[in-house]
């Protein structure tokens, strides 16, 4: 988590400036010299095929992937058809049956260690590419995505030959071929969350990256080559939703999906009666709850990190701020001033706090919901900031005067948009926080340890952060309650979805 610490350090320095008496307002323009990270470290191909059976396979169709910050075309990538997906699944099946599942667990372990190491060594290259293709600030891809992705492989590498200790008396065995579909918000990190536990458990994989962010997954194939992973153990097929749909219905034994609740439900429906194992990591509408005894400046940093980190493209983002009434004025005042210091712009600039919105489609969705918020009567605040002319951008936004029934308080926006609500008592905070079909995460800010645990007990969410937010670790299980999905990723619990166990006894056993 060294990565997070750096982000926080930076945030902390800014909060120092922001603590000046309000008589000295933050200047409208910060004089930063541009500090762009060099793109030279990344060598892109013009065209990428499908990675099937350890080889690049020429695709039948392609589409162009772009940089959302500039709309500049980066490369042509495969739009995999159902037939091509079936080939990838066949390659994974072949690898599973002819070697991988019966290979010595200690050897699987070492392959994963190799992958982790190579990712660490090539992390700058991956970070730059991640920011280029996805629009996230280099500061985040460099300090969060890459260190965490490598750490995830490192963590599960050690599990591969220790599964019987994780599940004593259950004789854990791999499931078979896992079909994995990942989102565009943390492309490489989500790949790591999916592939590392699957391989550690002895499965083989067909992974589909998100339509808008295929490039780091394609570069990852080169890591697999360097690691000399046997062909077919990991296959990567790029494409849009139709490719994902083809993967779900292909001859896979397990489906793991991270993405929207809407698509998650469709997948669950599709798999009904098939007996395929399924894990879903879906949307959220997390409450970030600030009590009147909380350290205000620290909370402001946490609120900012909770909703503006990665442009708010975070399933567990703290998109609903619940403020205890007595501190509403000072907290919202500080928050607005802090927003003025956020630098929105070039994802590859090391000073950038908020990068580009991932796609035009996502930008339109954010715009639509923000418009709905205004229509319904919420009060909008956006700091003065100049957005680049090309690319997809949205200024950090705060809505006050929000009622629980407003769409901006109910629906996942998946953008840099915060809705502020208030509460008086801890009971009311719990009631409001839980008043959503989602249940992925929640945040609590208070100096009182007993209250943290009291709140944590009552919040119906899979992850509860206290005096912090959006913090991840490979040892820490992550996943949702209710319509945020089921199954856990990370930790010992993250192995279970990729294993089968001995059957139950008969009646009366």
């Amino acid at each position: 988590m060294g990565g997070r610490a750096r982000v926080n350090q930076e945030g902390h320095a800014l909060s120092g400036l922001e603590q000046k008496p309000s008589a000295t307002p933050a200047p409208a323009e910060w004089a930063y010299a541009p500090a762009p990270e060099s793109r030279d470290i990344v060598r892109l191909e013009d065209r990428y095929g499908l990675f099937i059976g350890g080889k690049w396979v020429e695709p039948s169709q392609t589409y162009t992937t772009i940089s959302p910050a500039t709309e500049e075309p980066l490369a042509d990538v495969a739009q995999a058809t159902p037939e091509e997906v079936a080939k990838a699944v066949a390659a994974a099946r072949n690898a599973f049956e002819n070697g991988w599942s019966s290979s010595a667990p200690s050897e699987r372990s070492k392959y994963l260690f190799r992958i982790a190491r190579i990712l660490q060594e090539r992390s700058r290259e991956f970070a730059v590419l991640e920011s280029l293709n996805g629009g996230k600030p280099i500061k985040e891809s460099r300090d969060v995505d890459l260190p965490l992705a490598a750490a995830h492989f490192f963590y599960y590498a050690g599990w591969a030959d220790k599964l019987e200790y994780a599940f004593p008396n259950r004789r854990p065995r791999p499931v078979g071929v896992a079909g994995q579909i990942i989102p565009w918000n943390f492309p490489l990190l989500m790949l790591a969350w999916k592939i590392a536990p699957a391989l550690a458990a002895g499965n083989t994989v067909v992974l589909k990256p998100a339509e808008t962010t295929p490039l780091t997954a394609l570069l990852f194939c080169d890591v697999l080559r360097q690691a000399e992973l046997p062909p077919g153990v990991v296959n990567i097929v790029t494409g849009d939703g139709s490719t994902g749909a083809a993967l779900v219905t292909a001859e896979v034994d397990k489906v793991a999906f991270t993405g929207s609740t809407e698509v998650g439900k469709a997948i669950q429906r599709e798999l009904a009666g098939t007996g395929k194992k399924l894990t879903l990591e879906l949307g959220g509408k997390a409450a970030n709850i600030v009590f009147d005894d909380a350290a205000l400046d620290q909370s402001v940093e946490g609120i900012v990190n909770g909703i503006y980190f990665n442009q708010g493209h975070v399933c567990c983002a703290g998109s609903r701020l619940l403020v205890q009434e007595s501190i509403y004025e000072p907290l919202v005042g500080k928050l607005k001033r802090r927003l003025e210091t956020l630098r929105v712009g070039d994802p590859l600039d090391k000073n950038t706090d908020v990068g580009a919105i991932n796609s035009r489609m996502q930008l339109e969705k954010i715009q639509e919901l923000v418009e709905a918020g205004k229509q319904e009567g919420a009060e909008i605040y956006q700091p003065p900031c100049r957005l680049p002319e090309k690319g997809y951008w949205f200024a950090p936004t705060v809505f006050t005067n929000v009622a629980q029934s407003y769409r901006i308080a109910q629906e996942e926006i998946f953008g840099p948009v915060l809705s502020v609500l208030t509460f008086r008592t801890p009971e009311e905070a719990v009631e409001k926080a839980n008043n959503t079909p989602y249940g992925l995460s929640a945040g609590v800010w208070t100096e009182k340890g007993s209250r943290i645990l009291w709140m944590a007990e009552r919040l119906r969410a899979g992850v509860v952060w206290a005096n912090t937010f959006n913090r991840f670790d490979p040892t820490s299980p992550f996943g949702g309650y209710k319509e945020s999905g089921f199954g856990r990723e990370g930790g010992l619990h993250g192995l279970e979805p990729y294993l089968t166990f001995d059957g139950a006894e008969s009646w009366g056993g």
Partner: protein
Amino acid sequence: MTRLPVKKTYKLFIGGAFPRSESGRTYEAEGQNVALASRKDVRDAVQAARGAYPKWASTTAYNRGQILYRLAEMVEARTAEFAELATGKKEVAQAVDRIVWYAGWADKLAQVIGSSNPVAGPYFNFTIPEPTGVVGVLAPDEPPLLGLVTRLAPVLVGGNAAVVVASETRPLAAIELAEALATSDVPGGVVNILTGRREELAPVLASHMDVNAIDLAGADGLAPELERVAAENVKRIVHGGSGQSLWEISAFLELKTVWHPIGQ
């Protein structure tokens, strides 16, 4: 002269009470008139379960174990009645033993399923199991008592509330169990038992937006369609086994991970 026995009226078990079906319907099973529950009865039962759930979920693990152990005592004491409605005394004994086995898990779940996680940072990070909420249980047709107990006990010990659709062909043991439940310390509404047509009731339960998980042990051919409608609120789908294991319990549990700060 032989005495004319006083026969029992078999009713539903909802919210700790024994109502007739709001529809007024009955059907004949095992030579008795049994309530034929309606869709409305399912919704009432879910509401009762949701109401009873928070208190049951926050009952201390020790007390939940005690209450379930007490339930085993109540069933054992009614062995003769249950034996007539089930396949015999052996099945009753197995059902009692199964409840006792699960009762003992109440205060051990968190220790075996939970974890503390060594994260890189100044946080005490721990993962604990919690009940998923309201669980729909489609009890298998056979064996009438052990089948039901095998599916119900793991739901209860984890702190969930249940809405059970009893065996359609042999529902009497389920109603008898409801009477044992009513006289035990299991709070009213924690277990609700419906008798009637599975084909009519199961889809309502499986698609109900306030049910968090559904156990399809007794779904028979309905399973694929029930799984499909269960997706509407991302229900946890459990294909319950016939044995006893910790994993039958964990299927009805959520995992919560807490990042608690460490500082001076």
